[in-house]
């Protein structure tokens, strides 16, 4: 009798496990057999973020107007780790979003060519999706055979200051490197350590080198040198002028003491609440949001304490090839090649890029909208001006973030950190990069 009961229990257990397995299979099958009027969106934003609120509002009105049922999952920045297995399995969501890194992390072959979406008209406006974007943006998102990303926002970097602390910078923003150093010297003479920098983040150190080289040589200056297996690409005039300018900055004593021994966001927060004697910070367009959140959490009156302003990175010399280039990384939608409801996804992209919807990126998310004819948040007015007048864009670490990530991690970042620690001068920095790059190419 006891044995019979045991057998019954084990049988029930086996059935239960089988049922669980079948339920799992059933879920996958349901996803595949969904109705045509459906849109499955897996987002890089999490519930409560400004961008999530902006997109959610658009999804709700889109669903109400078209009758398309929307299934949105607010996954967050790690969404790729969930999308990639679904791409492999062949049942991805219909709509995803992210930066240009999607092209490498998801593989451009796994994403739909959006040429037709770019040609489609934005509802209620007499222009196409493609026409709504400025030319450098189109160039940034277009591969050899067409765009894979439809940008709705962007991030980039600029030189920030607090109008309430250094109002003179808005009257006379330094336009050349000489003027910039002169302004720093003046602040230093007044007892300031004018440049805030969280030196533990290698990419924040690297912003300075990146910008200097983008000015002297234009987009591709770092990428071309990194791709040269001989390691000799670091000795061009653009590299020499750019790195020597940064050497002047490092050796000038403009950073606060211990800037490379603190942990982010110590220096940024100290710049924002003025507990350090810093005035300028080269940082991304997310700075106003990030600093405001930090100050608000400390119950500080943000508007009384800070007025965000920015100016373009100054020209290094009159031989610059990168005048007017802007750091702008698009964030946009992509449609997986094997998505079941591509039409609904395409339709939503055009819908969201309408001024009415996109303006929420500025008003709710306080971020830069991808269209220059949508009013940006007031804190980003300076950056928006740079963006609208851009001659070309460059991406994070000159695009190498996506194409040569191991070089960035193992060659670029350690060399830049050593340079900013003052262990080497500009020539030594270039020699270090040359050696490490040659070694990198021998092994990769």
């Amino acid at each position, binding site marked *: 009798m006891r044995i019979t009961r045991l057998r019954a229990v084990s049988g029930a257990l086996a059935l239960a496990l089988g049922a669980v397995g079948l339920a799992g299979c059933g879920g996958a099958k349901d996803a595949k057999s969904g109705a045509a009027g459906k849109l499955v969106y897996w987002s890089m934003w999490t519930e409560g973020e400004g961008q999530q609120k902006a997109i959610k509002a658009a999804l709700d009105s889109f669903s109400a107007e078209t009758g398309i049922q929307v299934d949105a999952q607010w996954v967050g920045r790690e969404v790729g780790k969930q999308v990639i297995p679904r791409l492999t399995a062949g049942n991805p969501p219909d709509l995803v979003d992210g930066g240009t890194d999607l092209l490498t992390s998801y593989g451009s072959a796994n994403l739909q060519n959006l040429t037709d979406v770019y040609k489609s008209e934005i509802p209620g406006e007499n222009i196409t999706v493609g026409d709504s974007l400025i030319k450098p943006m189109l160039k940034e998102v277009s591969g050899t055979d067409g765009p894979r990303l439809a940008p709705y926002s962007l991030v980039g970097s600029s030189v920030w200051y607090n109008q309430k602390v250094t109002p003179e910078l808005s009257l006379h923003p330094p336009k050349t490197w000489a003027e910039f150093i002169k302004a720093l010297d003046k602040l230093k003479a007044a007892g300031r350590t004018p440049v805030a920098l969280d030196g533990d983040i*290698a990419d924040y150190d690297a912003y300075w080198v990146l910008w200097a080289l983008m000015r002297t040589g234009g987009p591709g200056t770092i990428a071309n040198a990194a791709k040269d297996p001989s390691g000799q690409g670091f000795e061009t005039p653009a590299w020499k002028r750019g790195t020597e300018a940064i050497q002047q900055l490092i050796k000038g004593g403009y950073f606060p003491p*211990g800037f490379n021994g603190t942990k*982010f966001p110590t220096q940024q927060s100290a710049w924002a609440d003025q507990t350090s004697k810093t005035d300028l910070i080269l940082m991304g367009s997310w700075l106003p949001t990030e600093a405001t959140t930090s100050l608000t959490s400390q119950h500080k009156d943000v508007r009384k304490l800070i007025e965000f302003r920015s100016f373009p990175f100054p020209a290094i010399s009159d031989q610059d090839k990168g005048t007017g280039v802007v750091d702008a990384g698009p964030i946009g939608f992509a449609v997986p090649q094997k998505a079941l409801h591509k039409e609904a996804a395409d339709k939503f992209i055009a819908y969201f890029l309408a001024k009415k919807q996109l303006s929420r990126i500025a008003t709710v998310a306080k971020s830069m909208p991808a269209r220059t004819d949508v009013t940006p948040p007031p804190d980003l007015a300076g950056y928006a001006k740079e963006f609208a007048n851009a001659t070309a864009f460059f991406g994070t670490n000159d695009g190498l973030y996506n194409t040569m*990530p191991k070089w960035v*991690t193992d060659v670029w970042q*350690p060399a830049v950190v050593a340079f900013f620690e003052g262990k080497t001068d500009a020539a030594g920095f270039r020699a270090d990069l040359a050696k490490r790059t040659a070694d990198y190419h021998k092994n990769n």
Partner: protein
Amino acid sequence: MSRVMASPAGLAPRARVRSGGSPAEQGRRKIYWPFITPALLFYVGFFVVPALYGVWVSFVKWRGMGDPQVFVGFGNYRRMWRDESFRMAFTNTITILIVCGVGVFACSFLISSILRELKLGPVLRTIMFVPHLLSPIAVGIGLGLLLSPDGLLNATLRLAGLGSAAQLWLTPDWIFKMILIATIWGSTGYYVMLMASAIGRIPGYYYEQAALDGAGRFRAFLHVTLPLTWDLVSVTAVLWMISAIRIFEFVYGLVGTGANPPPQARTMTIEVFLTTTGGAPAQYDMGLGSAMAVVMVLMTLVLVVAVRRFMRREALEF
């Protein structure tokens, strides 16, 4: 020869037992597979197969996202050994294993022996165990704050008039030394707990006899404590090796703040993380990352077997 001759006859009764036996035994036999199968399926499906797949991936070039896998043989292993970052991570891991191992065990024995003689020993032991209960990430981040330029360590040094000894402890030059010290600090409590329980079981008269024979504390440790806790020491040595090779969260919490830890501070697990899906930017080099992971597993196996053999002794009963 006699065994071979005997085997057919020997099998017969066993066969009879299988088909016969008491009803309870027969019943137990029938429920054996239904009970073991789900666990076996889960184990094979979620552990053995992925582990073997990881070995396969170490022989291919693959970004892990439906891209075709290209067989490269031992190419990833060759790349790995030529990779300066991996060599540094490997050296760092071995350094943690040995230096922190010596530190942790020396501190654990010393503290356990002292606690044995204190009335407040159990309370202090529990307090020392607390770091082990906390999230390694949280402990790492907390230590990072203590080690900042104006943190507690430098402030204390300045107060003590040793301002010149204050350093930027979190810069690449110092960070690995801090990791070594912090690892010893963070791990000792756990091993004190284990050691103290073993030392506490040693009858007091062994120590009394040792004292009567003129043995000092060190000789009593060598001739009483160590031999009578040897079993536990060999087990904890294995536990230490496994945790030292797999150390990750603690180091990441101490060093990382969203950026990549500098090469000077990377361990093998961190290097695997950066090579595959972690870090900024993620490298998605699944083949190279899997080769590193395979080396980690082999290294663990070799060391565990070696230590078990080296530390094998006749068990002492008391």
